[in-house]
C-alpha cells in the first residue's frame, strides 16, 4: 500500500514539533547552570570587559524568550555557534566526526540484525529455549554497552592481542577519504590492506554495541514468530506442501519482523547513547569522543550542539522507522 501524502505530511509535522520541543529542552538545560556560564567557560584571569563582550555575543544579556528564538534561528540555519576549545564552528567539528560515528553505528546495526534474526528464528523454530541462548540473552539485555567494551578490551585486545584496542586504523595506514566511511572508502579505492585494518579496528567496538541489540531482536522476533507460526495461513502453506525453509524465511519472517521494526526506534536511541561511551573506551574519533572533550573543557556551545545533533539523528531514525513500518505493513491504517 502506498503511503498517503496526508499521512506523510502529518508525520513530518510531528517530527518538526519534536525537534522544536527538544530544542527548547536543550536550551533550558543550559540556562540552569548554577552561576555564570561564560566565566565558567573562560576560567579565571579574564577581564570583565571580555566577559561582558562574550555575554553579548551569546545573547545572555537578552530576555530568555529572545535567547530561545535566536537559538532556534541558529539551529534552522545549522549555525551552532563557535567552539571555545577548538575556535572553529561547532557544526564543522561535528560533521568532521560524524562519519566515524555513523559508520560504527551502521556496522553495529548490520551485525545485530544479522545475528538477532538468525538466533531469533532458530529459537522460535526449535521451540524449547536453549539454556545457553537464554543466559546470553539475559546478559545481553542486562549488561550495559560500556561493560561489554571493557570486557572485550581486556580479553581480546590486552590478553589475546587479537584485535587493536583503539582508533579506526593503525598509524601509517592511509585510507583515501571519499565517503568518510573507512570500510567503504578502502573498498572503493581498492585498498585491501586498509580495509582489513579498518575491519579489525571496528570489530570490538561494534560487537560490544551490538550484543544488547542482538539479544533484543532475538527475543522480540522469537515471541512474535511463535505467534505467526500458529496462524492459519501458515497451516495452509504447510498443506500446500511448501518447504519449511520457504515457510519460515519468506512467509512468516516478514510478518514476524513487524514488532521488531516498531521497537527498533527506541532501541536505536539506546544504541546511539551507548556508542558515545564505547567510542571513548576504544578511542574512536567520533561525536561521542568529541562530547567528552567538550564536557571536560566546559565548552557549552559544543556540548549543546552535540546534544542537538544526537537528538536530531534519533528523531530522524524514528521517523524513517515509522515510514518503513507503514510501507511494509499492509494492516496499518492511515489516519
Amino acid at each position: 500500500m502506498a503511503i498517503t501524502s496526508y499521512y506523510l505530511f502529518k508525520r513530518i509535522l510531528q517530527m518538526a514539533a519534536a525537534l522544536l520541543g527538544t530544542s527548547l529542552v536543550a536550551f533550558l538545560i543550559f540556562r540552569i547552570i548554577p552561576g555564570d556560564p561564560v566565566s565558567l567557560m573562560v576560567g579565571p584571569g579574564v577581564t570583565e570587559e571580555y566577559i561582558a563582550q562574550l555575554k553579548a555575543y551569546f545573547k545572555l544579556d537578552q530576555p530568555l524568550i529572545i535567547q530561545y528564538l535566536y537559538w532556534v534561528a541558529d539551529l534552522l540555519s545549522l549555525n551552532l555557534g563557535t567552539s571555545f576549545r577548538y575556535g572553529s564552528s561547532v557544526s564543522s567539528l561535528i560533521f568532521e566526526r560524524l562519519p566515524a560515528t555513523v559508520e560504527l553505528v551502521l556496522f553495529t546495526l548490520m551485525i545485530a540484525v544479522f545475528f538477532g534474526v538468525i538466533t531469533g528464528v532458530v529459537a522460535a523454530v526449535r521451540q524449547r529455549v536453549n539454556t545457553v541462548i537464554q543466559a546470553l540473552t539475559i546478559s545481553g539485555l542486562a549488561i550495559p554497552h560500556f561493560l561489554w567494551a571493557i570486557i572485550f578490551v581486556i580479553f581480546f585486545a590486552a590478553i589475546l592481542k587479537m584485535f587493536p584496542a583503539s582508533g579506526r586504523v593503525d598509524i601509517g595506514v592511509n585510507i583515501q577519504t571519499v565517503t568518510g566511511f573507512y570500510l567503504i572508502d578502502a573498498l572503493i579505492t581498492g585498498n585491501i590492506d586498509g580495509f582489513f585494518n579498518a575491519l579489525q579496528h571496528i570489530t570490538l567496538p561494534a560487537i560490544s554495541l551490538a550484543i544488547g541489540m542482538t539479544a533484543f531482536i532475538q527475543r522480540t522476533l522469537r515471541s512474535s514468530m511463535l505467534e505467526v507460526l500458529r496462524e492459519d495461513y501458515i497451516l495452509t502453506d504447510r498443506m500446500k506442501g511448501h518447504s519449511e525453509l520457504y515457510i519460515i524465511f519468506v512467509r512468516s519472517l516478514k510478518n514476524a519482523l513487524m514488532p521488531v521494526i516498531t521497537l527498533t526506534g527506541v532501541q536505536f536511541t539506546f544504541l546511539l547513547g551507548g556508542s558515545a561511551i564505547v567510542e571513548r573506551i576504544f578511542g574512536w574519533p567520533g561525536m561521542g569522543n568529541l562530547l567528552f572533550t567538550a564536557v571536560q573543557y566546559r565548552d557549552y556551545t559544543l556540548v549543546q550542539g552535540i546534544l542537538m545533533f544526537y537528538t536530531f539523528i534519533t528523531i530522524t531514525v524514528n521517523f524513517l522507522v515509522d515510514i518503513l513500518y507503514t510501507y511494509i505493513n499492509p494492516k496499518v491504517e492511515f489516519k
Partner: protein
Amino acid sequence: MTTATIQARLLLKSKKAVISTAVLVFFFAAGLSAPFLPLPDPNKQNLNAIGLPPFWVDGGELAHPLGTDSLGRDVLSRLLHGASVALYVAVAATALTATIGIVLGITAGYFRGKVDDLLMRVVDIWMSFPPIILAIVLISVLGVDLNNVVLAVALVDWTRFTRVLRSEVLSIREKDFVTAAQTIGFSPNYIMWKEIFPNILPTFIIITTLEMGIAISVEVLLSFVGLGVRPTTSSWGTMLADGLNYFRTNPYGVLFPLSATIAVILSLNILGEVLREKIDPRLMVIR
C-alpha cells in the same frame, strides 16, 4: 510437556531467583556495613605498596586481601565503599524517579484529558534524547557530584516510569470496581491511591527492580569517565578506570570492580525477569 518437566522448569526459575536475591542481599549488606567495618581508609595512599595482587597470588600480602590499586589504596576497602556508593545511587535515584513516575502516571492516567495529552507530548520529546547522552550533558551542567548523578538518573528516566504506569492506570480505571467506587462517591484522591495504586503495584515493583540496575550502571559509567563521584569518593566506576589503565602491571585491579558491577546488575535484571514471569498474567505461559 510433562508435569515433571514443568515443575523442573519452575524450580529452575526459582533457583535463579534465589541466587540473584542472595547476591543482592550480600550487596546491600556490604553497602550498608562498609563504613562501620574495620577496613583501612579507602583513600589512604601507600606508595610503597602499589599495584599489589590479591593475597593468594605471589607478591600479595594478607594486609591487603584483594591487593592495592595504582596509588597503593586497599582494593577490598574501596570495593566495599564503592558498594555503598552504588547502593546509595540505586536507592535514592530509584526513589526519586519512582515518586515522579507514580504521581504523574496515576494522575495523568486517571484524569486523562488535556493534562494527559500535554504530559505525553513532553514524555515523547524527552525520549528523543539518547539517555546516556542526556545524562552526560546534565552532569556537565550540574557539576560532578554524587547527588547530581542521582538527579541526572531521575531527570532521564522519569519518562519510562510515567509512561508504563500511566498505561496500566488507563486500563485499570475502566474496571468495574473503579466505576463502583466512583458511583459510591469516593474522592478521586481516594480512588487513585486506595483503589488503583494497589493494582499497579506488581508492575511498579518490576520496573523499580530494573530501575535500580539502570541507576547503578549509570553511576558506574559516569564515575568511569570521571563525571560521577568526586575524586575522593571510591566508586566501582573509578576503580574500573584505574584498573583498566594499569591492567598490564596488575590485571586484578579491574577484575574485582568489573565482577561486582556485573553481578549486581545481572542479579537485579534476573530478579526483575523472574518477578515479571511470576506476576504478569499476560506472560503466564510455560516456556
